[in-house]
């Protein structure tokens, strides 16, 4: 039986009871023959106990009245309340700025969102060459696009809501290379996610919606990247996917 050397991390995992039984026994034997480490282990255990002794009483205090989840004001019956809550929670992600969406008339996309819609219209009907790098080589795809965009990109996983990754490609953008990921559902309906590096000072924006012919686009900026999700599907469905994408990128 070959024993691994005992590391600093092992000592802490030993203190916290986080080691598997076999390893625990090995570390215990090591500690028994190393007085200095034994002293540290004992001190760290005492710290754990002292911290709980000092702060556990907080658990039994009655919670001050000012502490609590704030109910939205003016909430009526349960159903309406639920709707209000759902809307507010959604607002956390998309803001209350879906002006275009609410008034019904979607504006035409401008700038990079339009580029995204055009790229969608160009590549999504492709039968033989929809992507440059297929989903089977996802790691390569991510590394390659991260390198070309000069920032780490992530591919959202949309399998849970019925969209599988087809793959991705590199495209020219107005301010450097951009990436396009393509997804499709079991009926072959395709969505594309367009990523560009964000050079403005804007750190974050709400979701915005625009429409170019039949292609709907939800786009937003999150830190150093701008995202545009395009598809020829119902706005609600596209919003649902966009929300999932956002959540995947901000776990």
């Amino acid at each position, binding site marked *: 039986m070959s024993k691994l*050397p*005992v*590391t*600093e*991390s092992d*000592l*802490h*995992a030993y*203190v*916290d009871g*986080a080691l598997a039984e076999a390893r625990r026994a090995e570390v215990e034997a090591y500690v028994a023959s190393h007085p*200095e*480490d034994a002293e*540290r282990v004992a*001190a*760290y255990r005492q*710290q*754990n106990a*002292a*911290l*709980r*002794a*000092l*702060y*556990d009483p*907080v*658990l*039994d*205090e009655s*919670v*001050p009245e*000012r*502490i*609590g*989840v*704030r*109910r939205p004001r003016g909430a009526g019956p*349960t159903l309406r*309340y*639920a709707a209000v*809550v*759902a809307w*507010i*929670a*959604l*607002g*956390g*992600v998309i803001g209350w700025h879906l002006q275009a969406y609410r008034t019904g008339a979607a504006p035409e996309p401008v700038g990079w969102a339009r580029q995204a819609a055009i790229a969608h219209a160009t590549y999504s009907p492709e039968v033989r060459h929809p992507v440059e790098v297929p989903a089977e080589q996802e790691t390569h795809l991510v590394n390659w696009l991260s390198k070309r965009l000069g920032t780490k990109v992530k591919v959202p996983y949309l399998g849970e809501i019925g969209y599988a990754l087809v793959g991705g490609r590199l495209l020219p953008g107005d301010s450097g290379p951009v990436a396009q990921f393509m997804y499709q559902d079991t009926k072959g309906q395709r969505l594309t996610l367009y990523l560009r590096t964000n050079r403005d000072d804007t750190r974050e924006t709400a979701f915005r919606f625009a429409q170019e012919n039949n292609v709907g686009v939800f786009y937003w900026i999150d830190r150093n990247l701008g995202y545009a999700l395009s598809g020829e599907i119902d706005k609600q469905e596209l919003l649902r996917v966009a*929300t999932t994408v*956002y*959540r995947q990128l*901000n*776990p």
Partner: protein
Amino acid sequence: MSDYEPRIEQHIPRLRRYARALTGERTAADDLVQDTLERAWVKLRLWRPGSDLRAWLFTVMHNVYVNQVRARVSQPPMIHDDEAAYLPDRPRQSDMLEVRDLDVALKGLPEEQREVLLLVALEQLSYDEAARVLGIPIGTVMSRLSRARERLRRIMAGMPEGAGLRIIK
């Protein structure tokens, strides 16, 4: 959606415990808890159903706390480097006194070390959970935990810091 309210509220006592240890003050701690709850409520959409709500609430609290600490730029700087010495000004005579000194000694830790130590030792999160809550690699959790514990041990024992710390690889 409405049943999230009791689900969040059941975690309030633990959020208060962590906040109390983190800030060292009752009022500041409860302010932090309230800010966390408000932010969590707005960001609830970002929580993935099925994942650990408590860990997610700690994540929200961490983000709120970091922003608050950053906002305190005009206040005297915290101790940032590991070399800065902190010595208790009186000997300890009883266990009670020692526990109270722990409160003070905790403040001698840099923020990021204190957070890791409290999540692991007090809240008993796994190293993996702590890494996710703080948004740092697990190796960073381990090194901060190691530094925090050793620093705290030296403060409590009235030992000078820096000397004699042996990290075995």
